[in-house]
């Protein structure tokens, strides 16, 4: 049982950090860039994606024996589309203002390759419990990415976070950040930062190995 717990935990953490869907695997870019012009939109999008991914992973993992192999992709897509429709109408009923701003991007969750990717690569081959943990981890990682991008863009482009003014009236907003080019540039710079961290880490490991070799030679 302890081993089982550990495995579930590992699956969860992997999605958030080491295999982060956006920063590491570069999946699900379209909704990622389109809705992150404010932190609140980013969180709403993240929540909708979490619901869709967890729901469809649960269903796919539960029904995996009954989905014929030849039509599995279409089956997954129909399951995902059902959950997206539910999410769409729920947001419309609960928060019409956010729904209006996200507009066509809620239905477009269906075309997010990250979700289909998790069904094909993980949920259709694992137990229900693990599949749900994986879905939680992956969508958690997606949410982290959405939120950091949304927060950066809103703070720089509008001088506020969640609509609360941060800098007072003398701040000159950097408008380009909330416009489309800002999305591309911010994500490009974040990926650059991730590359840099990986490179530094590799360099460090190499140096340690080198030092050990010198020490053993001496």
């Amino acid at each position, binding site marked *: 049982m302890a081993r089982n717990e550990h495995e579930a935990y590992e699956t969860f953490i992997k999605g958030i950090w080491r295999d982060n869907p956006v920063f590491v695997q*570069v999946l699900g*870019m*379209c*909704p*990622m*860039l*389109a809705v992150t012009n404010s932190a609140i939109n980013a969180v709403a999008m993240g929540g909708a994606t979490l619901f869709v991914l967890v729901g469809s992973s649960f269903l796919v993992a539960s029904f995996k024996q009954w989905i014929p192999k030849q039509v599995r992709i*279409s089956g997954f*897509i*129909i399951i995902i*589309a*059902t959950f*997206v*429709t539910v999410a*769409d*109408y729920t947001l419309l009923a609960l928060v019409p203002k956010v729904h209006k701003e996200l*507009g*066509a991007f809620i*239905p*477009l969750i*269906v*075309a*997010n*390759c990250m979700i*289909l990717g998790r069904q094909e690569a993980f949920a259709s081959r694992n137990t229900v419990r693990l599949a749900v943990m994986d879905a939680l981890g992956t969508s958690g990682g997606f949410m982290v990415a959405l939120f950091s991008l949304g927060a950066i863009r809103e703070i720089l482009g509008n001088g506020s976070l969640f609509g609360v003014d941060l800098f007072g009236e003398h701040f000159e907003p950097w408008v*380009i950040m909330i*416009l*489309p*080019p*800002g*999305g*591309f*540039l911010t*994500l*490009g*710079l974040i*990926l*650059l930062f991730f*590359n*840099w961290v990986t*490179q530094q880490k590799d360099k460090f490991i190499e140096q340690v190995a080198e030092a050990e070799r010198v020490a053993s030679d001496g």
Partner: protein
Amino acid sequence: MDNLAWIFISSLLINNFVLAYFLGLCPFLGVSNSLETSLRLGLATIFVLLITAICAWVLNTYVLIYAPYLRLISFIVVIASTVQFIEMLIKKISPTLFRAMGIFLPLITTNCAILGLAIFATNRGYGLVEGIVFALGAGIGFTLALLLLAGLREESELSDIPKLIQGIAMNLIIAGILSMAFMGFAGLFSAT
């Protein structure tokens, strides 16, 4: 007529699908490493977008007035199967055309630009002709953005770029600069 020209120019330049709406980014970043592949992918996308516009119009006019909540599911299923059917038809009728764009057709079907077009056209209440013009503008706009990025990437192969920046990070920054350039078109029609 004025309205149609406006729809075309708007979806081609001002609200370019890739650079302003972020639709179809996966192929935009993934396949744009050579000009020739990009052109083929662009042609295949224009083709699928046109089919999508027609399918979406048929569904909206005849089926979905009775069951609007089935919109998403029916769009996906109908578009995917129509494209598959036409792919088989092309393979039978014109093998040359199939070789030029065939492999991309099934890939494009699940692209968000396709679904996005169907949803935008529905939300804005476009008719059949407007929808087709919209699809044509969006498709040519997509091809244009793809070709621009591919051209820049081909050039950058020859220059000495630090290893750190190479890859997807550089492409995103190039796309950001292209998107900034396209923002200049925003003033094109605002006077009228």
